[in-house]
């Protein structure tokens, strides 16, 4: 099918995600921006289910269920569909010169990322060793075959054996749509996460603060060198940027739920956190933390969500996150993983590593050619606004941010691998997961600092 097939796959992804986001009243751009990452989650999960139930990877078989589900929902739930379209409230005001400059930077970064990513084949080591190799193998094998994981050379040899399969199956979908293997073209799927990231981030901020602050922070996020590396330079094809998008959607909609009691936002947050667990193992810790915090809010603060709805949310989470965890459980155990030494005894004996870990990490975070002023700004504004931690929504964002950071440090404390080398090869990828959340914190605090923090209220049908 060639390029047209790739467009068809992109349409399928957007359609699959849109089936969910169309029921959430928001701007059309926001609905579409969220539809892309959520759609990738749904379609790759579908491919995984097909593999488990031995349904062949044929494009019509992949497309058909989505059109049936879409048609069914449109007919049955037509009244709940939101056609908010383009909200012109912020468009009627003329853009200032400063805002035009920021818009130029954002669209320049997007254009650069999209063009530069598909101009050359895959480059990053993990890209072809982990994600694209599996993607190619599943395409050539016609599914996720159990035997594949038993061949040490392909899956165990690089310790990526137990990584979730969203990214590889996204590559597989690309190859299926093209009808052949072309890693250069399929890279576009990963750069599109960057486009989603920026639009979602901008509209989250725009719902709580001024257009100028939203544009400024979006432009700053768009130009973080480590983000750009995976968006359009030599790290396109890594799964860290996709994971950061799922974290952002989960945190952003969770914030809306906590601040506005927006139940549909809660549903989107939970779906996104669940897909994060299907993207990388790091997503699992975030999912658990988010479920605990949101459950606490549901039962002790909100109290309008019944036990039946709560269990419905849990079922959705398990439906998305559990299949791979169960499948992984049936695979032979790895001899050495990052947490294979997980025990209280190891933790206590290795706790002395913490000062060394911080000593290695902190200088990296404050390196200009990696993060420009990002972490400096985050630390400064967090310290200045400590009293803001009394606000439930803000506390939710910061708690998830700090919990996830603590998990990464915990892994470094336990790792059986050479510590300095382990940190050097992973920390710049791990921070990508947290960057958009960090900027969301900055956005909330900055808006509060300048007296422009607004309460976002859109009545959902």
């Amino acid at each position, binding site marked *: 099918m060639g390029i047209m097939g790739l467009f068809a796959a992109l349409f399928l992804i957007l359609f699959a995600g849109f089936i969910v986001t169309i029921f959430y009243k928001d701007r059309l751009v926001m609905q579409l921006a969220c539809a892309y990452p959520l759609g990738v989650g749904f379609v790759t999960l579908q491919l995984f289910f097909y593999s488990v139930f031995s349904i062949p990877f044929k494009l019509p078989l992949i497309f058909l269920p989505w059109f049936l589900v879409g048609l069914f929902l449109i007919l049955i739930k037509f009244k709940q569909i939101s056609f908010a379209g383009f909200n012109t409230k912020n468009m009627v005001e003329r853009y200032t010169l400063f805002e035009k400059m920021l818009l130029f930077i954002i669209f320049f970064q997007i254009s650069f990322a999209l063009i530069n990513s598909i101009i050359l084949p895959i480059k990053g080591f993990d890209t072809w*060793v982990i994600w*694209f*190799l599996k993607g190619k193998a599943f395409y050539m094998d016609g599914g996720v075959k159990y035997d594949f994981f038993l061949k040490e050379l392909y899956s165990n040899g690089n310790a990526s054996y137990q990584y979730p399969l969203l990214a590889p199956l996204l590559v597989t979908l690309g190859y299926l749509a093209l009808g052949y293997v072309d890693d250069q073209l399929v890279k576009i799927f990963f750069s599109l996460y960057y486009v989603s990231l920026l639009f979602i981030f901008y509209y989250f901020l725009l719902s709580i603060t001024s257009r100028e602050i939203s544009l400024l922070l979006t432009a700053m996020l768009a130009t973080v060198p480590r983000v750009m590396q995976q968006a359009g330079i030599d790290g396109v094809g890594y799964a860290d940027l996709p994971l950061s998008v799922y974290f952002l959607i989960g945190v952003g909609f969770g914030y809306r739920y906590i601040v506005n009691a927006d139940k549909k936002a809660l549903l989107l947050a939970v779906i996104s956190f669940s897909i994060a667990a299907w993207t990388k193992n790091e997503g699992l810790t975030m999912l658990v933390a988010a479920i605990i915090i949101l459950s606490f809010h549901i039962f002790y603060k909100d109290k309008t969500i019944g036990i039946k709805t709560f269990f419905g949310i849990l079922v959705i989470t398990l439906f998305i996150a559990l299949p791979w965890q169960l499948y992984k459980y049936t695979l032979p155990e790895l001899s050495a993983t990052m947490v294979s030494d997980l025990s209280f005894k190891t933790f206590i004996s290795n706790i002395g590593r913490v000062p060394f870990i911080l000593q290695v990490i902190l200088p990296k975070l404050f390196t200009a050619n990696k993060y420009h002023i990002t972490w400096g700004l985050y630390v400064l504004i967090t310290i200045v606004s400590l009293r803001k931690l009394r606000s439930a929504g803000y506390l939710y964002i910061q708690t998830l941010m700090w919990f996830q950071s603590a998990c990464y440090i915990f892994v470094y404390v336990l790792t059986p691998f050479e510590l300095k080398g382990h940190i050097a090869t992973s920390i710049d990828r791990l921070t990508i997961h947290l960057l958009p959340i960090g900027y969301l914190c900055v956005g909330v605090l900055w808006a509060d600092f300048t007296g422009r923090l607004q309460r976002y209220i859109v009545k959902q049908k």
Partner: protein
Amino acid sequence: MNKGQFFKILIVALWIALDLSLFRKEIRAILAMPGYFNLTPEEKKIKVDGQVYLFAENLRSLTPESSSILFIYKKDGFLRKSIYYLYPRKLKPVYGYDKLTSQDLLNIDYLAAYLPSDPDAAYFFERMSPEPVFDKLYEKDGGVIYKVNRELIR
């Protein structure tokens, strides 16, 4: 100027100043783009992966998908790239050739070695070539591919 405006100007100035390295990198990439448009997919692969891509491609075209290949390497990157390009062929990797025994050749259809810039490689290839067990199919830039005549292996 209120405190909000001052804060904003300060942040923007610092951000732009510290992000200059990224902008420089992007401008360099943009200037290099026209050169990439004229390259064939194969030339692009060689540009990114190096000569190992050519070797892997030749190995791929000379061997059926069901074949087993003994792959001798000394650099992990070469092995990993070859694994990617050669899937679903069954690769049996061997680090270096010093400890290679006839046992390693059991159930093997092809022998491939990619050892560029290894001075001993030529000796190894010369030693291997006259043997009737191996039919040389390819030799270039430190890469060599043999068909293994399994019936001659004792």
